[in-house]
Structures are given as C-alpha cells and as structure tokens.
C-alpha cells in the first residue's frame, strides 16, 4: 500500500520511499524515513493535498508524492 491510499484517521508505518532526487530527499528530510509512524489526518477540501501527523508535527504533501511512499 502507498500513503495516498491510506484512509483518513489511520496510522501506518513507512516501509520505503521510492523515487529519487529532490522530492525523495525532501520527504526524508521532513522525517519520512523507514519505520516512522504516520497518522493520516485529513484531505484538503478540494481533494488534494493530504495532511499527515509525523514526529509530532503536521505535514502536508500532494497525493502524487504520497504515492512514492510505501507503508504498512
């Protein structure tokens, strides 16, 4: 499963970040690394981006980028 498919209100664990370059690095810099817990908090009113809670703070990312993150 990838992060964009997770339902609002669920908590998942990161398995792997796919892709490369700036977006991957940025996601990881923000703390989205292997084994971290991610709580999917909400979807923006227009359907994209999503808001997640990670390491005690709120992060928003687009569904397209969330699709790079494999979770369980």
């Amino acid at each position, binding site marked *: 499963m990838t992060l964009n498919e997770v339902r609002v209100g669920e908590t998942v664990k990161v398995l792997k*970040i796919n892709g*490369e*370059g*700036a*977006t*991957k*690095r*940025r*996601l*990881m*810099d*923000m*703390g989205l*690394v*292997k084994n*971290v817990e991610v709580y999917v908090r*909400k*979807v*923006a*009113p*227009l*359907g*994209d*981006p999503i*808001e997640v809670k990670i*390491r*005690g*703070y*709120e*992060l*928003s*990312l*687009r569904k397209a*980028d969330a699709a790079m993150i494999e979770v369980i």
Partner: protein
Amino acid sequence: MKIALVGNPNSGKTTLFNALTGSNQYVGNWPGVTVEKKSGKYKNDKKIEIIDLPGVYSLSPYSLEEVIARNYIIDERPDAIINIVDGTNLERNLYLSEQVKDLGVPMVIAINMADSLRARGEEIDLKKLEKNLGVKCSLISAVKNELGDLMELIKKAERPQELNYLDADIEEAIAKIEVQLSNDTFKRFIAIKVLENDPKIIEKEKIDPKVITQAKELSLALAKKYDDDIESIITSKRYEYITKVTGNIYISKSSTKESISDKIDKIVTNRILALPIFVAVMTLVYYISVTTVGTMATDWVNDVLFGEIISPAVESFLVSINCVPWLQSLILDGVVAGLGAILGFVPQILVLFFLLAILEECGYMARIAFIMDRIFRKFGLSGKSFIPMLIGTGCGVPAIMASRTIENERDRRMTIMTTTFIPCSAKLPIIAMIAGALFNEAWWVAPSAYFLGVVAIIVSGIILKKTKPFLGEVAPFVMELPAYHIPKATAVLRSMWERGWSFIKKAGTIIFLSTVLIWLLTNFGFVDGQFRMLDTLEIEYSLAAIIGRAISFIFIPLGFGNWQATVATLMGLVAKENLVVTYGIIYGIAEASEEGSEFWGTLATSFTPVSGYALLAFNLLCAPCFAAIGAIKREMNNAKWTLAAVGYQCLFAYAVALMINQFGNLFIYGSFDFFTIVAVIVLLMMVYLLVRKPKAHSLKVVGAYE
C-alpha cells in the same frame, strides 16, 4: 564576532533575531535572488554581528534557501552558530542540528518555546541532551524574551564533539574521504557531501577527480549493502540516532491528547467549513486593505496630503520667492508628484502587510496554500499566489509585494510576473472609457476585462512553467503546517514596517526618476521650431508626441497606430488612469471626468469597437505603472528578471491585442490582410507553447541554481 542564526522555518528564528538585535537590523536580499537577508548588531554588544540565515529543514542542495545557508557558513566562516530548535518538535528540528554539527563551527543549540513546554507540562533534561548531542544547549523563549544563558554560552562556544554515530562502515567511508580534503574547517560536512555526490559542493571545493571516483566507489558499495542510495541511508541513520537521543531526555512528558492548535485546525480546515472560512478571511483582508482602510489612507495621502496640503504649500512658497515657471512645474509636477507616487502607496502596503503578518504569524497562511494548492499548481503557481491575485484587483503594488509570503522562488517569480494582469482599480477608468465611447456602456465590457486578466494568468502560467528558467527548479510541495499561535503585536508591526520601508527604499528611485522623465517629455516640446515649455493643452507639440509619432507604427497591426494612443499609453505608465486624462488633454479638455465622458463622442470617431477593445486589452496587460514596475524590481532583486517580467508582459499584451484586432476585423468586418496571417501564426505559436512537452533532460533538479 560574527554569529549565524540557523534553524527550521517556524522555529521562532526571526523572533529570536528580533529579540537579540532590537532595532539594530538591516533587511535586504541575498544577492541576485528574491530571498530576504537580515543582519544586525547584538543590542547589548555592538561588536557582535548576527546574521539571520534563511529558515531551512536540511542542508541539502535542493532548495535555494538551503544553498544560501550552507554557502554562507562555508564562505563567510561565522565565528559561531546559534542553532535554534523548536522545543515542542525536537525530532525534526534536531535533524538539521546534526548536519550543522558536521560543519564543525562552534555552536550552541537554543531550545525555543520554553513557554509552550511549560504550558504542556513537559520538561527536558538539558544536561542529558547536551551530553547526548555533544553541544551546549540553552532553554529559551524568544516570544517572552527569555534568553537564558544563550549569549554567555555563545561567547565561549566550542566546536561540537565528533560523536561519529553513523554505522562503522559509513564512518569509515567518511573518514577515507576526509583525510584527502584540503579545506580543514568543514571536513566532515564536505566529506559527507562528496560521498553523496553533491554537485555544488564538489564544484565549490574543487574536489580532486580521483577523490570523486573513490567516493563513488565507496557510496556504491554502501548502497549495495543497505539497499538504498547513500543520501537516504545517512538520512535514515540520522533520524534513528535522533529518535534515540530524544527518547530519554524528558523529565516529564505530556500525554498525547489533543492540543488547542489541533482543535482550531479541526474547524478551520475542516472539509465542509474550510472553504467558507477561507472566503470569509479573504473577504475581510480584501475589505480592510482594498475597500476601506488601505484605500482610504492611500487616497488621503494622494488627495489631501499631497493634493491639498503639500502641493499648494509648495506652490505658494515658490510663487512667493518668484520662482521661474519651469522650475515651479518641475518641482510641483515632477518632484512632488514623484514623491506622491511613491508615498501614496505606502499606507496601503502597510495595511496589507499588517494583515499578512497576522496571517503568517498565526499559522493560517500555510493553510491557505494547503486549501488552494490544487487549483494553482496547474498553472505553475502556489496556493499562496491567491492573495497577490486578490489584492491585485485593488492595486498591483501591494499585490506584487505580497508575493514574498510564497516560500518557493520559482512560484514567487511566476506570481510577480502574472499578478498585474488582473485589472487594478486604476485600470477601471480605462475600461469605463472604452465601454462608454465604443460599446454604448455595455454591461459585459468590465467583466470581460477581468476574465481576460484571469485567462492571461492561466495561459502565462502554463507557457512560462515550461520555459527553461522555470523548469530547472521543480520544488516538491512538502510543507509543514505550523501550529497555530496568537500573533505577537511587535512582530506584526515590525514586519509591516520593514516591508513598507523597503518599498520606499528599493522601489522609490525608479518610480521617482520615471515620473520626472515623463514630466520632462510631456511639458517640453518644439512650437514653430522653438524649444520651450508647453501649456497644458499643447501636448501635440511635446517631446512625448514626437516620440509617439516616431514609434506609433508598431501599433498599426493592433488598430491604434497613431500618436495619440501611443502617448496615452506612455502616460498610462505613470498611473494607468492617466491614459484617460491624456486623451482628455489631447481632445482639448483639461479637466475631464474620471471616465472621460466629455470626449466619448470624439474618441468614437478614431476607433472601431474592435480596435478600441484591442487598445483596452493592450493597456490592461502590458507593463504596469512605474510604481508596480518598481515593486517588481524590489521583489525580483535582479535587473534581468525585472526586464524579463516587464518584457514578457508587453509582448504578451501585444500578441493578445494583435489577435483581438485582426480576428475581430476578420470576423466582424470581413477584412483580411498581411497582419491577419501574422495573427494566425501568433495564435498557433501560443497554442504550441501551451501544449508542448518540455524536454525531459531539462527537468533535472540538481544544479538548478548555478
């Protein structure tokens, strides 16, 4: 002593900077870019200089702010670094600290938000944290001005202890590169970057090709072993380490129940309420800055302060000392009018920035981007571009300046280039004049002008985002949504004042000089072969008219290739409503009404509805007034980008007006000529630019800032 302030966005870095420097600060831009640079002197010891580096989450080469921050440290070698971290969000904040530690510059970690920690009932064991990190830490609350022992610690700051906590084989690889580096201050940082094959550091430090080859071999072996690329391995290991470090430092820790910020957010960006709340907030911002307070204050400065107080006072003074008429005119219509053009915008800018500062400080600005991203990203803009566009319906100057709330430079530049396509209030008289003179005051002319502006933004966004300068800098939208805070009055007022003042300083010169130049061009000319100053209604003899006659041919394909339209357009650069005033003067009416209804009949004889609409379209879309150009220059902070923006606007306006005139003539009057073919070609080119796929190789992100 030089101290650099490093920290995440929203960590309270600017608040700390303000607390340390008081009013001894200088605000400018980093050379050639739109990123703000702040420096100042420590208020209790003027020998200490403090530089506020851009807020960053990492020291990678992927964003402009990160490159600026790390280049500053490597090139300018500050004596010490204060790394400010948000005490309520230690994990992510310390990730940056780990990279800063690698630089090996003496540092102190300032753990901010002591007040929030107290309120939450959390307590951090500082001694344990210092031991774990190998760096001295100081607990502060920048908002409450509690700076603890921070400045004592920083004066005797030491290089961070090298703990080498990464896995043994990674440390070994780093060590192998380190010993071959000539730069001995930032060894560990540079060695890691060389291992990560960071092109900017490799070029900057002139790394030996042999070392690069060795680094590639080492990182390839590690990548194989850990089944990931080297950057990701190091990032993961750092976070692992930080999780361990922060795991046992809390003496007491709050339960994870919902904070007030969470509760606010549940309402504010709730799926149903988010859009109504957004509309309400935006309406309020618009109402205060454009409809009421801002515009009233600006009108007061223009009409009362300059119109009724300063100008008459200066005039009566000049008359009393028997000043020669041309000098009187220069001082009144050139200098005083030029100053008025600058200062007239200041109240509105101050009001707008007061509101924007509140939105930023309280945390709602990030939510605006969150809500609007979906719409705006399609056109290469940021969700935060919404505010400049909205303010642009009132005045382009504060609108352009509002673009600085957008964090990505690419989005910021794009917003600056396209915002003034929205008709501002000064363009309304032009719309009213054309609608009245040529369209029998038809209701649809004004809405069509706004529609044209919006389409121009969308089309430009799509075209521009595929061009080279915009392609190189694809920045991911991965954004922190900071916790809500109650804005602090001093921070809001300071931010408002700084931005207003920087407009006066940076945009003032260009506005002033161009106003004086236009005064010269319209008030002097040749009458019967004699050069002299002109009366108001002698504009046809002016230098401006001479220039107008010389260049008016370029407007022939647009349907208004005469000197009158050219001069009026030129005068529109001083202030767009001057276009109407100028037409009045040309037709012999010195004091026409705002829409020029006195001369609608005369105007109708020299235009067809089609060429009239082309004139309207051209003047709505072409270069904005000098004040807005000054604002563009201030925000772009780069002559090339300023010229590119204004040049693009003029070219785009020309293309649109050409198509309106030619296709209008073709479909309404059935006329077909050479320029109709040109218009077809322009249309095809525009369609091509809209649909083309950019070259794949130029999508590469690394190295985009060279």
